[in-house]
Structures are given as C-alpha cells and as structure tokens.
C-alpha cells in the first residue's frame, strides 16, 4: 500500500475538497439537504482516508488523540450551552430567539450553533471509534 502512487496522489488531491464539502454541507444545511450529522461524518471520513492511505501515524498528525477526545464532549457542551444561554437571558431552555433582536434571525443563528455542536461531537466520536478499533489491532 505504501508505494501505491495513484492512491497516494489521488488521496492528496481529493482530501481538501472532501473537507470543504463537509463544511459546505454543514453551513448550507439551512438551504439544501445537509446539517451537522452529515457534515461531521464526512469530516471524520477525511481522517479515515488519510489513515487508510498513509497509515495511522499520519492521521494522528492531523487529528491527534487529545484533539479528538476534546471534541467529543465539546460538541455536547456547545449544544447544552446554547440552551443555557437562553435560560440566562430569561427565556426557555433551547429557545434561540435570544441570539438576535429579530426572533427569526435568532432562530436561524441558534440552529447553526446547535448544528455546529452536533458536527463536532459526531466527527470526534467517529474518529475516536476508528482509532480505538485500529489501535486494538496492533
């Protein structure tokens, strides 16, 4: 696998586009099909691709263990924190209208924040699962 030229060059070419596509899917989730779940899975897919083509060490350079483990709870905290922000400003839990003067714009912003939390948790968890299974095999 190490000397497979087409695979290595092809992966290098595809990689940035896959990552950009992941974030496109997330941020455009309001207007097109997509959202945090799909974006997170595709972002984790880039790490899988690097690990499969260049080996686990190269993937660990891009997404080290501490970063992945940090991402897993961080997303949940962002999601829950968005709810607490509503509480602190005198509205119900997870009421997004506090994020902006205009209620509808606030909801739009709140949806983006919450989906970002989902993206971080999903990407972190999927990468952590993959690392756990691969490391067990050595």
């Amino acid at each position: 696998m190490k000397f497979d030229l087409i695979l290595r060059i092809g992966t290098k070419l595809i990689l940035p586009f896959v990552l950009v596509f992941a974030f496109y899917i997330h941020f455009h989730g309001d207007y097109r099909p997509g959202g945090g779940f799909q974006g997170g899975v595709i972002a984790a897919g880039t790490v899988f691709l690097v690990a499969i083509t260049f080996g686990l060490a190269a993937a660990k350079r891009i997404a080290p263990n501490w970063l992945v483990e940090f991402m897993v709870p961080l997303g949940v905290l962002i999601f829950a924190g968005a709810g607490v922000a509503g509480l602190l400003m005198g509205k119900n839990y997870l009421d997004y209208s506090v994020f902006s003067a205009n209620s509808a714009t606030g909801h739009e912003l709140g949806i983006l924040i919450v989906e970002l939390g989902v993206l971080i948790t999903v990407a972190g968890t999927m990468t952590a699962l993959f690392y756990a299974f691969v490391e067990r095999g050595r």
Partner: protein
Amino acid sequence: MQALNNFIAHYNYVITIFLMITGLYIMVARSNMVKKLIGLSIFQTSVYLLYLEPGKILGGTPPIIDKAFTVYSNPLPHVLILTAIVVGVATLALGLALVVRINEAYGSIEEDEIFKKDREQ
C-alpha cells in the same frame, strides 16, 4: 384485479416486512456475532423504511420550501430517522467493541462455542 391493485399499493410494506423478518431470522438463527449485528442493522433499516414510506406523497417534493412547489412530503419522519441512523452506527460500534472483547476472552465469536466453553468451566 382488485386484489392485485391492493397488492401493488402495499408492495413497499411487503418488502419492508420481508427485510424485517430477514433481519430477525439472522438474529435468531445465526450464531456468529458479527453476522447477528449486521442482521440487527438490516432490521434497523427496515424500521427506517417503515417510518419514511407513509410520509411520501405522490407528486410531492422534498421538504425544502421554494416558491415553485406547494406539495411537500412529511418532514417529521425524516427528522426522526436522521438522528436514528447516526445513533444506529454508534451503537453498532459499541456492539462490535463488545464482540472484540469477547473474542479476546474466549478466542471465538461463535455463540455455540462460547456456551460450550462456559459449560466446561
């Protein structure tokens, strides 16, 4: 003719239930644990279809609002299933982790062999 029409109108449900009982059969009859988990995920996908099928309206469009369309399919099942899929893969990975640990403890993932080893002890 009436019966045939009725069958075609419910054909999707028949296939969904077929997938469901296929998953059930794999779960019950096969002793290999990885295959059991794949049977479980087949069962799960049949449940996804069971949710999504009634939500479809013939001639409707996907639920993204646009001035050109007036008839949209029901968005609620889509939301429920979207989260269920991601949770499904997380639980599948948890099951596989358990299988890996069982394999390390018993040296086998066949249910029959594991029961035999338990009885010998």
